[in-house]
């Protein structure tokens, strides 16, 4: 695959991401120890547009290593466009998106689903670094404020999203509701199949006419 970035830039980006991931993992000891079961396996994430590749390898100590180059055996390779990866990242059901989406899977899918399950189960203890910095009492209070703030923000976000959805679909009628849209797509697909069948029928009749003539 042609390189889009200078190797130094590519490595620097992965180094920063690796540091952030490992910092997060260090706050989730249970998930970290689960990751050791995948130690040594290499997962390739291959984005075709824009061209970008990263290899992820869980280590013996439960940390992860990100690489821009790997020439050994890859357990699972996931290939797709940036949009496909974004869809996976934002998906409510990543396993279903992986299997039914436009991403191409090469190799053994079992370790990948296991990795996805471990990451999905990660219970990151965000309070630990705050307690380390501010002490038990102040750290817990800061964490509580942050948690309440986050929870409030999440509730507001969900409520806003629902109200916006209702306004767009039901009140302003700017866009059809999801079910209507799915029904329309099904009709288009049926029509497509019928046209294909009609086309085949016409071809067959034309062939018969040619043979008769």
């Amino acid at each position: 695959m042609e390189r889009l970035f200078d190797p130094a830039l590519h490595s620097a980006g992965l180094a920063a991401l690796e540091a952030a991931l490992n910092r997060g993992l260090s706050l989730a000891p249970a998930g970290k120890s689960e990751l050791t079961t995948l130690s040594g396996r290499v997962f390739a994430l291959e984005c075709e547009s824009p061209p970008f590749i990263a290899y992820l390898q869980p280590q013996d100590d439960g940390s992860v290593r990100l690489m821009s180059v790997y020439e050994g055996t890859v357990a699972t390779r996931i290939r797709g466009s940036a949009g496909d990866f974004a869809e996976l990242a934002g998906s409510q059901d990543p396993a279903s998106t992986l299997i039914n989406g436009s991403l191409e899977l090469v190799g053994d899918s079992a370790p990948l689903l296991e990795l996805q399950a471990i990451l999905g189960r990660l219970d990151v203890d965000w309070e630990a670094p705050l307690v380390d910095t501010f002490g038990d009492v102040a750290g817990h209070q800061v964490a509580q404020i942050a948690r309440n703030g986050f929870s409030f923000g999440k509730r507001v976000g969900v409520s806003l999203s629902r109200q916006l959805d209702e306004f767009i679909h039901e009140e302003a009628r700017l866009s059809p509701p999801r079910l209507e849209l799915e029904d329309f797509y099904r009709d288009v697909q049926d029509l497509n199949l019928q046209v294909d069948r009609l086309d085949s029928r016409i071809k067959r009749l034309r062939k018969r006419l040619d043979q008769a003539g």
Partner: protein
Amino acid sequence: MSDKDTTHFGYQTVDKDDKAGMVAGVFHSVAARYDLMNDLMSGGIHRIWKRFTIELSGVRRGNAVLDIAGGTGDLAARFADLVGDQGRVVLADINDSMLRVGRDKLIDGGHAGNIEFVQADAQDLPFPDDSFDCITIAFGLRNVTDKDRALRSMLRVLKPGGRLLVLEFSKPGNEVLSKAYDTYSFKLLPLMGKLVANDSESYQYLAESIRMHPDQETLRDMMEDAGFSRCEFHNMTGGIVAVHRGVKS
């Protein structure tokens, strides 16, 4: 002095027998502040260049790795983690001051058991034939008096299928970048050396030795001439640095 007996020491032409001693003088002088100066001079990017070199090395559990001109042990420390208890890493440097700093830093960092420290000349490596799965030399080849002899010596001690990685300053591909890099190297670098390490001459030599080092294509040809196959290079940071890789067939 005939051409055959001379070599470059920065922009100076010196007797071949004198270069090793002059280079040793430079590194004795900078050893104590080597890591600090590397971080200052490169803005920390040297760590990224080394990271990419390690990725390209393909070193894995159980491998034997030789890090020549290993200096303060940045590569050796990472290799020691990768090869594990079953593997072996040899940190070699011709300069005892650099080797001492590297050894102290690695032991203080908890790296022991699978690392050996050897004072060795890259031109005459004191190891049996076919000993290592991977050899690296980072920012060291340009200081070697006879580079062809050093490359042949590395080929000898590599196992068949083993990889040599040469990480070294090179020639920027872009004219504008090249001009900016020249200004930085000859104006700012010696000034930084003066202020931080109180040694502008050593850093003047650094800038000059980089300019006298073979460019990407020439070094690749030298590796092929020494007997390496599948030789290739990857430019980094616009070609300011390149990592060359060759395989012993």
